């Protein structure tokens, strides 16, 4: 089983690499935010697998925090301040 | 040191150098603040790599404690730097 977990972790890392290409290429901030979102979700998945692989159950808590805060970046990106010049 | 330690420690050195270079040379204020954060992350990575003792071995907790507080201090310092930058932008309008 650990063998499989290691393979899948590595597979997720490759998948993340593809996401990196999109974050570098864009075009525009919207596309980059999408890629950042995917990188976050992949990070959550990798932390869960690493927690088993390395026998560190606290990494599940790290994944939980990343999951709970996964929408913050998008909200801060799209949110507008009340008196911020342009509309 | 273990191979893993070397990989992370050397990456930490590289991040420190990358951050330092941009902190000195980048024309924009915001990116310079980011660069200082990258420098900090490089130092953190170096410390955590030194604390690592291999799989299944408990790592050295002291660098962990240092980095843990360092992260919180770094974000506060970043907020202070951004507040300074905001004040600066407000006082000298660009156009």
């Amino acid at each position, binding site marked *: *089983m650990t063998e499989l977990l290691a393979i899948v972790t590595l*597979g997720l890392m490759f998948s993340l690499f593809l996401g990196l290409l999109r974050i570098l290429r864009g075009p525009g901030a*919207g596309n980059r935010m999408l890629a950042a979102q995917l990188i976050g979700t992949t990070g959550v998945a990798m932390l869960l*697998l690493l927690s088993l692989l390395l026998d560190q159950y606290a990494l599940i808590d790290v*994944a*939980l925090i990343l*999951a709970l805060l996964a929408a913050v970046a998008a909200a801060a990106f799209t949110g507008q301040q009340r008196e911020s010049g342009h509309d | 040191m273990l191979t893993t330690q070397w990989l992370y420690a050397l990456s930490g050195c590289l991040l420190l150098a990358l951050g330092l270079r941009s902190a000195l040379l980048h024309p924009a204020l915001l990116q310079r603040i980011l660069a200082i954060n990258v420098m900090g992350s490089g130092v953190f990575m170096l410390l955590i790599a030194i604390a690592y003792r291999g799989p299944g071995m408990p790592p050295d907790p002291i660098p962990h404690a240092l980095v843990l507080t360092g992260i919180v201090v770094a974000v506060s310092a970043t907020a202070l730097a951004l507040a300074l930058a905001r004040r600066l932008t407000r006082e000298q309008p660009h156009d």
Partner: protein
Amino acid sequence: MTDILASLLIMAGLFFFMAGSIGLLRFPDLYSRLHALTKADNLGLGLLIIGLALHLRDPLIALKLLLIWLAVLAAGATSAHLIARHARRREKHV
């Protein structure tokens, strides 16, 4: 037996993550990429989490894993909505 099922689910999860990433890279515009992304969030992480929960057989950890999935699902849907709305508004402005 459950471990075989768990392995299959975990591998299926990886498949959807891969599909999501490839979609994000290959699809032509932001809106279709959004759809690719939700596959990774919903199905990829979901299958992976069910697989891990089956493998661990610890109800408390399973509960935490379920919470993580729900949080990512909600955050993913919200982010997708926010980013799409933002992009639409910008298009109207231009």
